[in-house]
């Protein structure tokens, strides 16, 4: 699939303004650009787990969605869209529906990695013809920055606060993209906001138009939770990729493909430093914590390269 940036940007907007996400939110940047993967003329039903995105984009009676939209609860976005997709198949079979619909669900990392994990796993295992998009901002931001299983190690959150006996979250983050890939579904990809959004766009289009289940994991920074300077979101994403904290890859029919390898891998400090949630790591005496963080990033990066080398 080729990428014509100007044409893509000229497509009609499928997320209307007037929603109530915070200024500078990464979540809606993800949504707008995923929805540009839909072909004009195709309709869609959008699912959404409870979270910032839901409470802010459908605050009665204001919906920001140009397509049909369903929010059900926090933990069941996968199952809910399974039902919608089942209805589509049934109505098609009975000759009650002509139009082509695509099914896309958005969930934050709380609704995806944690409380909605079972429902997501079920929908993926059944190879439901849908795309599940996780906009991963690494904590429960809607309820006020509590840790999730997507929160990186040592992040200062409101349930893993830094204190005299605590360096923030003690555990590593869950590798959800790999877990979903282990469901043996046709398409899994990890991406974020880079340059002209080619990576995110191409992956979204592939995910939407691959028959069967697809999963996109998008790093979508949250200026409140991560405590960086709000206008710097693109720089934060770039550093995530250049430090190999957030590698760009795809798993197509079980085949792992690395989409980008930095010419010179940057040290993890470069990604951590601009973020207030990691401020404590830069205090004198905490050098070993950063070293440990770096080791984990390296270990995962080597593991990913190994998977991709096997094809």
């Amino acid at each position, binding site marked *: 699939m080729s990428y014509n*940036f*100007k*044409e893509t*940007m*000229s497509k009609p*907007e499928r*997320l*209307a*303004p*007037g*929603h*109530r*996400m*915070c*200024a*500078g*939110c*990464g*979540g*809606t*940047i993800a949504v*707008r*650009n995923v929805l*540009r993967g839909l072909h004009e003329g195709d309709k869609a039903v959008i699912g959404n787990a409870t979270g910032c995105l839901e409470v802010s*984009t*459908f*605050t*009665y*009676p*204001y*919906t*920001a*969605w*140009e*397509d049909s939209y369903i929010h059900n609860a926090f933990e069941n976005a996968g199952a809910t869209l399974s039902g919608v997709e089942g209805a589509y198949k049934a109505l098609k079979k009975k000759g009650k529906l002509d139009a082509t619909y695509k099914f896309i669900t958005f969930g934050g990392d709380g609704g995806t990695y944690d409380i909605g994990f079972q429902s997501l796993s079920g929908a993926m295992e059944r190879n439901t013809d849908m795309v599940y998009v996780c906009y991963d901002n690494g904590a429960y931001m809607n309820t006020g920055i509590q840790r999730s299983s997507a929160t990186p190690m040592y992040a200062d959150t409101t349930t893993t606060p830094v204190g005299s006996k605590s360096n923030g979250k003690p555990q590593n983050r869950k590798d959800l993209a790999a877990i979903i890939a282990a469901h043996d579904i046709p398409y899994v990809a990890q991406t974020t*906001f880079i*340059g*002209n*959004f080619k990576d995110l766009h191409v992956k979204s289009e592939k995910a939407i138009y691959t028959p069967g289940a697809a999963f996109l994991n998008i790093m979508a920074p949250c200026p409140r939770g991560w405590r960086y300077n*709000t*206008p*710097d*979101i*693109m*720089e934060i994403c770039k550093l995530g990729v250049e430090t190999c904290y957030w590698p760009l890859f795809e798993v197509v029919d079980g085949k792992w493909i690395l989409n980008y390898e930095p010419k010179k891998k940057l040290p993890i400090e470069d990604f951590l430093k601009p973020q207030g949630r990691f401020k404590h790591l830069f205090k004198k005496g905490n050098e070993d914590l950063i070293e440990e963080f770096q080791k984990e990033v390296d270990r995962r990066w080597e593991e990913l390269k190994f998977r991709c080398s096997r094809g």
Partner: protein
Amino acid sequence: MAADITKLGVKAPWKDLTEGMVIAGAGTSRDFNTGEWSTDKPVFIEEKCKQCLLCTPVCPDSCIPVEGGKRGEFDYDHCKGCGICVKSCPFGAITMEGVE
């Protein structure tokens, strides 16, 4: 049939609410003005703009309209003044109001 949300203000009696609180229709949030949230506003300096459009995908609020491959004026009714577009412009064609 699309719901007429002008009848669904906060003083609407219970009988007037839509059944099941569904909203038939789309994009009704345009009627909600989030442009009031911020005092900082981006300013579009058209003569510096090369129409590279790098500012459009980064806007969290869909406030940079594009038509025929060219961007237009900001949607100030909804822009929250986050400043991401300013950083994304390679040509200095966007500044924050009062800030060079």
